[in-house]
């Protein structure tokens, strides 16, 4: 039910547990109130006055509504788009009536007018939020997704096949395992990639990827895994970690003649999932390989697509190490 596809096709209602959605609703409704004040009282001083008088009812209603919608999110997530929208409207209208009953005496707004304004605002906010979601046009987003998946470096495939060929006679069993890993990896890379995956699956994928690289690079690649506190049931868009690990090997290990230490650490911190991938910086004098930022930008974009303002992806150089960190909300659910 929570999948990128549904978000993209806007068959899911806005997620009121998302910081970005909440902020947008707040700003949008207040702008709307300003606009209404402007239309009814075009003179600046009176307009502000009208706006301030309106806020006596508006702000309590707005805040209470967001709080209630936040609380109702688990219920809303189980509904389809239209039933969810109707539920949201009904909830907010009920709250509007309650607000009017409690605070009506401080203004001259009638209950009927208040309900009409509220209904109009809810419709506009939902339309705006839905529009905002679909602004990441599905076609565009899917094209980017596919571009990312096609991006796996051809040299990785050919070098891996070459390594497997070298094993076939000497160690057939290991060759078999390597081919299985490779098949699994490419299955994931070629899947349509729109639904969410469990962290456990993504971790198993990057472990397979690392096994293939290990075969190829031998002792030059030294992987350290810190996954003890990884929330295996967390949901995330597919192929977020693999390209980061591929980057770490491609930029940090392959160009160096010595041993390259690559660290993967994934842990849950409260309601957040934190992932860190570290690799050595290429030694001075060695020409750095280009083409890193496309992958980072692509991953960041996809995280935004799903988590909006709540996802973070940062990369930086710390001493002789290059570090990429991802921080996303901890979400679980059916895949």
């Amino acid at each position, binding site marked *: 039910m929570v999948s990128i596809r549904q978000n993209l096709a806007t068959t899911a209602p806005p997620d009121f547990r998302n910081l970005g959605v909440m902020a947008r609703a707040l700003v949008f409704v207040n702008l709307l109130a300003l606009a209404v004040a402007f239309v009814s009282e075009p003179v600046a001083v009176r307009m502000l006055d009208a706006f301030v008088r309106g806020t006596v009812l508006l702000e309590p209603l707005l805040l209470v509504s967001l709080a209630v919608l936040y609380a109702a999110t688990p219920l809303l997530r189980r509904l389809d788009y239209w039933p969810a929208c109707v539920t949201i409207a009904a909830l907010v209208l009920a709250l509007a009536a309650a607000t009017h009953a409690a605070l009506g005496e401080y203004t001259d707004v009638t209950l009927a007018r208040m309900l009409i304004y509220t209904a109009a605002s809810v419709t506009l906010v939902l339309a705006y939020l839905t529009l905002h979601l679909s602004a990441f046009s599905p076609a565009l987003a899917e094209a980017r997704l596919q571009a990312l998946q096609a991006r796996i470096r051809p040299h990785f495939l*050919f*070098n891996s*096949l*070459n390594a497997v060929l*070298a*094993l076939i*006679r000497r160690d057939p069993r290991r060759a078999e395992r390597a081919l299985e890993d490779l098949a699994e990896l490419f299955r994931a890379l070629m899947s349509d990639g729109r639904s969410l995956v469990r962290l456990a699956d993504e971790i198993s994928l990057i472990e397979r990827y690392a096994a293939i690289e290990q*075969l190829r690079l031998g002792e030059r690649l030294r992987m350290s895994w810190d996954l003890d506190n990884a929330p295996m049931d967390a949901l995330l868009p597919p192929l977020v970690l693999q390209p980061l690990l591929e980057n770490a090997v491609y930029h940090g290990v392959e160009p160096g*003649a010595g041993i390259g230490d690559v660290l993967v650490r994934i842990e849950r911190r409260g309601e957040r999932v934190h992932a860190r991938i570290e690799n050595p910086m290429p030694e001075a004098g*060695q020409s750095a390989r280009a083409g890193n930022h496309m992958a980072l930008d692509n991953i960041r974009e996809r995280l935004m697509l799903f988590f909006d303002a709540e996802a973070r992806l940062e990369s930086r150089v710390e001493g002789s190490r290059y570090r990429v960190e991802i921080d996303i909300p901890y979400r679980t659910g059916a895949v």
Partner: protein
Amino acid sequence: MSEAAGETRTELRVFIADDEAPARARLKELLADIRPELATVVVGESANGLDVIERLPGSGAQVLLLDIQMPGIGGIEVARHLGGLESAPAIVFVTAHDRHAVEAFELNALDYLMKPVRAERLAAALKKAQAAGPAPRERLERAAAGAREFFSIAERNRVVLVPVADVLYLKAELKYVTLRTRMGEHLIEEPLVAIEREFAERFVRVHRNCLVARAAIRGFERTAGGSEEEPYWNVVLADLEERLPVSRRQWPVVKSVLPEPKQ
């Protein structure tokens, strides 16, 4: 070709350079497979470019199977340095790039194999390389992706590498170019113009016959001669007593080097 065709019992001496151990193992297997068709003996193996340059000259290799993507200095640069050897090996490049990338790198002019390598292709490439001998220098230069990391001096049976970063200045004298580092001098046989073009960011021309490392320039000194309006200048270099004259023609270019932070 005549040698190999005439004496079937003579083994072709092959050197393998690839940073991935499985890739080297695979090439050895294939060489064994094609033995009925082409007898070879592996005279050396290396996992990085510097090691190839150090060990190949003494190995008596006739053909070098050379991976293009290697740590440190890559295959193309290795080939350029080995080209100066008296008994330079023929080189067959091996790459995991796809055909598209191969075209982009202008490797077409060279003999190359794509990974995974097939036995028949390997046999054909070895025969062809053996017949054709070392790749011409200008083809290698065209295939190079960027400036080299080293200058090389090919001696009778070894190649001396001088890191480009160590070079303070280069001076053309008759048919040689003198390469000056803190440690001493070397002679290389390359046109100064080509060096200037390849390392435009690193060296600046101060005189018709002289390039100076921008980073080594400490300042300028006026010299005797010239006039008040048009003085003659010398370059003052870091760690060197020697002064290098700046030609009047180059002075406007050269003097703009100093205020910039060194590279």
